[in-house]
């Protein structure tokens, strides 16, 4: 009963936030404002859920509560691809590829990266996570300098396009991409639904999962594939989320009324979507557009995480 009450309360809060977001000041021009806001809301829901699902399931596979796909270089790979596209094709190329072609290409890239990870790090079934994490960090740093260089080189118009691709934002949602993302997301959820109990078993660690009859190697590979697509969906729809996944996952563990993924995954989704809504509302009303959702989210998650590190000695 308490679990149900927790979720009812969360859903209620979320619905209130969503209503506030869609309806605030909409009387001025409801025909134009409301459909646009509904689209943004849909992007927040799909993107937020993708971030939460990918982060939490990745942490389960990795057996670690700090690592997320973003930390492990997934988003860096995505941004690298975008940078290369801008460099080779120019911004027009990016907008061109930014449609369905770029989307599919980035999904392919992510899948490739996932396969590499799986090959290289999960061979013998034992993850050499530290190694991967360092590699991910280096990739992130190198790609960071590459993107900065691009920002200096390209014209202001191109800069705006790139900037919007390199930060969380709901402004660039297009109906077509939203549709593709939503469909992909639903497919992933359906594919993952059957594996949900197995995810709980994976949380017990490789050896225990195997002795409970799970083909660990195959399960990990499948999960990494699903995670790759989820990251591609979230990154291309709303932009790179950096450390947000860690925040969402850890808060979900703390707030969910139990440890099963049946409980933590929905809670994570609710937290991510709620955070987006709150940040967007704050940007529009509290800060009067003098800041962006990306900056707010980075700031909040980073500060929270550092506080967590200071408070809790044995995080890993």
């Amino acid at each position, binding site marked *: 009963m308490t679990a149900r009450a927790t979720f009812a309360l969360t859903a209620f809060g979320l619905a209130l936030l969503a209503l506030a977001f869609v309806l605030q000041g909409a009387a001025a021009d409801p025909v134009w404002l409301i459909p646009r806001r509904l689209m943004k809301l849909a992007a927040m829901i799909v993107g937020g859920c993708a971030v939460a699902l990918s982060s939490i399931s990745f942490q389960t596979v990795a057996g670690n509560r700090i690592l997320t796909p973003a930390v492990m270089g997934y988003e860096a790979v995505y941004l690298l691809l975008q940078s290369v596209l801008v460099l080779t094709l120019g911004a027009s190329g990016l907008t061109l590829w930014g449609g369905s072609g770029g989307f599919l290409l980035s999904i392919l890239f992510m899948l490739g990266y996932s396969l590499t990870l799986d090959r290289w790090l999960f061979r013998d079934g034992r993850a050499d996570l530290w190694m991967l994490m360092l590699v991910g960090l280096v990739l992130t740093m190198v790609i960071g*300098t590459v993107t900065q260089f691009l*920002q200096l080189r390209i014209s202001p118009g191109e800069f705006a396009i790139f900037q919007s691709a390199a930060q969380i934002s709901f402004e660039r949602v297009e109906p077509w991409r939203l549709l593709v993302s939503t469909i992909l997301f639903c497919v992933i959820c359906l594919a993952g639904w059957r594996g949900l109990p197995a995810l709980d078993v994976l949380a017990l660690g490789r050896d225990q999962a195997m002795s409970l009859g799970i083909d660990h190697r195959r399960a990990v590979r499948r999960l990494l594939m699903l995670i790759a697509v989820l990251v591609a969906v979230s990154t291309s729809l709303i932009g790179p989320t950096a450390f947000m996944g860690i925040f969402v996952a850890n808060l979900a563990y703390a707030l969910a009324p139990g440890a099963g993924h049946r409980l933590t995954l929905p809670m994570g989704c609710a937290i991510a979507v709620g955070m987006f809504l709150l940040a967007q509302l704050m940007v529009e009303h509290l800060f009067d557009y003098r800041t962006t959702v990306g*900056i707010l989210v980075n700031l909040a998650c980073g500060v929270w995480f*550092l506080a967590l590190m200071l408070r809790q000695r044995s995080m890993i």
Partner: protein
Amino acid sequence: MDRPVAPAAGPGAGNDCRPWRRRGMGRALPGALFAALCLASLMVGAGRMELAQLTTFSGEAWLTLTASRLPRLAAVVLTGAGLAVCGAVLQQILRNRFVEPATTGGLEAAKLGILVALTLLPGAGQGVRMALAMAFCLAASLIFAVITARLRATVLVPVAGLMYGSVLGALAEFYAYSRNFLQGMQGWMLGDFSKVVQGSYEVVWLVLPVVAATYVFARRFTLIGMGAEVAASLGLGYRAMVVLGLVLVSATVAATVITVGAIPFVGLVVPNLVSLWRGDDLTRTLPMIAAGGAMLLLICDLFGRLIIWPYEVPVGLTGGGVGGLMFLFLILWGRR
């Protein structure tokens, strides 16, 4: 977690120097290489300049040399040496091989300091900016030292550092965005030597006394790498040394960020390579670290100037790329 590159006991613990190179060669060869790189750095540029012109004391060539090429050479050498030494000192203080100004929030803090100086005191000179950048960097480094002291897993330190840096970066962005200053900020995000000319770069000379001071205290920094208990039992004021080290690091970081911008990885790669080769005794390795940093940056700078001549790729990018690749190599090599 016992990786060769990440010993839990800190860098000072393992002191394995491998005498597989004869000392004589080890000294003469880098010296010659260094001289050649300096000469090459002077010769390369958008404007033509040949040795013959110099011998005839052609006014234009001399002007290019003194106003642009020599300052640039000095800036590159000082920045490279300074950042590499910074990295070595930070690695001893935080007792972790994977730290350098870019992975401890130092760079971001310095940027934040400059930003504050530019917006609050727009008329102030370079001295004020320098002071603010250094103050911010020092404060951020001290806080980070406190954070890392509480982290048990060595490998988490650079993650925490990057996260810390991104918080400071977000803070800077928040501040810049609300003051419509974001585009202006991009300018000194990325290290670039092309704007170094006579009259604008002199702050970077501050690196010289800092490196000298580091050398004077080298033995103590090595001891600090062994931890507070060891240092104390050897009669060393641990805290005072940590603060001194961080002050030196902050001064270097602030000076280089103001004159050329952020250059990642130099402070990470060079000390690690030197310590693989010659061990961790800073009294012996510090000159090599400084020279190695200068040479790495000279190579990156030359590379950046030549690759799309007559335009140039900023050194932040080439340094980031070359340094990043070297770092990856270090990790993978240490893994075996």
